[in-house]
């Protein structure tokens, strides 16, 4: 194999193995994706007037927004709405978690019979798929405007997160400890309480705090469809073109969301 010798007998070409059938299929697939994206971009393309109008609107928006409205009355209304949002988050977390616990057990493959498992998974999927605001708009119709609708919406949204992740933890538990309780003649409930619960409680507390964090974010905006909290105030400020007040509210929301995130991170670290 010296430099001059030709490498006779070996293939002259090499093709990278592809997940596609062959290279042409690959390019057809890529082309199709590109065309699809271009087509959807074409569908939302703005007219020239719209862009020009947009520039005007944006400059008006920005100049009215700054500085934020820090008058006592604005601050008072922001404070009132925010307290309601935070209260909604606490209540919704408490109720949502209590109602999600049985769902979590149902959605854990190793703990329940098949049909029950499917029901559990279905509840989780539906709850996950529907955005809090979609749930909120329905709840407002059902129980009227106000924080109750928001709380119910957040409660409905809880299993999609809480039950799903708790079910995954339940599926990972150490079966040995469970069998020990079963062997000493415990019934299903005792198995859950003494064999399963001690193993997942720290993780569960972490998930509760995490859910509270999410609920804080959600409770600040469900008001947009009338379901209580600061969101109502925000929507009103936009409808009345009080963008400086809107900015105050948004800054308050960001502050609360960040404090919530930090508090939840600290609390979860403590628990673990």
């Amino acid at each position, binding site marked *: *194999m010296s*430099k001059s010798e030709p490498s006779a007998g*070996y*293939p*002259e070409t*090499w093709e*990278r*193995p592809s997940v596609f059938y062959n290279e042409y299929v690959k390019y057809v697939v890529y082309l199709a994706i590109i065309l699809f994206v271009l087509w959807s971009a074409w569908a939302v393309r703005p007219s020239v007037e719209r862009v020009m109008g947009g520039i005007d609107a944006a400059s008006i928006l920005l100049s009215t927004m700054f500085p934020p409205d820090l008058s006592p009355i604005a601050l008072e209304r922001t404070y009132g709405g925010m307290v309601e949002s935070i209260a909604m988050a606490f209540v919704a977390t408490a109720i949502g978690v209590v109602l999600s616990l049985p769902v979590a057990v149902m959605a854990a493959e190793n703990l329940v019979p098949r049909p029950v498992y499917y029901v559990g998974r279905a509840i989780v999927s539906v709850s996950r798929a529907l955005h*809090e605001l979609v749930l909120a708009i329905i709840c407002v119709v059902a129980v009227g405007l106000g924080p109750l609708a928001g709380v119910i919406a957040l409660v409905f949204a809880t299993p999609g997160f809480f039950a799903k992740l708790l079910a995954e933890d339940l599926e990972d538990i150490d079966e040995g400890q469970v069998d020990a309780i079963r062997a000493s003649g415990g019934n299903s409930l005792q198995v859950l309480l003494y064999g399963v619960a001690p193993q997942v409680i720290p993780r569960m507390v972490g998930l509760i705090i995490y859910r509270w964090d999410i609920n804080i974010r959600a409770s600040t905006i469900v008001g947009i469809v009338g379901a209580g909290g600061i969101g109502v105030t925000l929507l009103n400020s936009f409808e009345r073109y009080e963008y400086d007040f809107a900015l105050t509210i948004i800054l308050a929301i960001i502050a609360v969301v960040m404090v919530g995130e930090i508090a939840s991170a600290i609390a979860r670290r403590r628990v673990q």
Partner: protein
Amino acid sequence: MLEITDLEKVYSTGDEALKGVSMDVEGEEVVSIIGPSGAGKSTLIRCINRLTEPTAGSIVLDGEDVTTMSKSELRNARRDMGMIFQEFNLVERLTVMENVLSGRVGYISTMQALRRNFPEEDVQRAYEVLDRVGVGGMENKRADELSGGQRQRIGIARAVLQRPKILLVDEPTSALDPETSFAVMELLTEIAREEGIPVLINIHEVELALEYTDRIVGLADGEVVFKGTPDEFDQGARDTIYRAGESREDQSTPGEQVQKQQSASVDISDADRETSY
């Protein structure tokens, strides 16, 4: 061939890794650099192709000084220096064939690199070299599917495909078990002989150096403390090299950190917890 004169390297941390090293490599010989860890072996090898910028001194390859080259001159010079790494440094998520062909990356255009479009003779030779290093038929496997020994064979194949004028090798066996180490050293030195090129190789284990190399350079604390053939390497030489370096022996060497385990894939369950709200 390769002539190093008064090479110095001071890292930005103030570490004086090389304190005036002079040595040369001629013809088709295999030269080993031995010394305790922290002696400056890796630094020396990496200065030669300027993966690490030397502070002072000259490195002349085939009559041209590497240290004063411009970026594009340096790229051309690097094509002539095959490098084999301690941690193999294969592109883990690419196939074996892509890794081997990447040895020719300095000779093709960006567009060709993008399309993995290498000349026929390169492809042909890649197949041949893969056979030669003993991993024939694995060209479509991904590098991260292979064992350490196999990866180092691919690393050698990649360097050979460059058709380099010299091989620079940094502790090729310290990530391998002893048995594989011997096989890889054997392969490496044989191939160099077949290709008719010299090798400059860092070795931590003295035994391997004695068995496989023509000439030994002993490095301690950034200075050359021994030069000679394996026959001339006696207990006295061993003591000078390793006693002088003892003080630094147990210091950690940033250059030798264990390769970070690749976990490029997204941790979806964590992302899941990313509040989408």
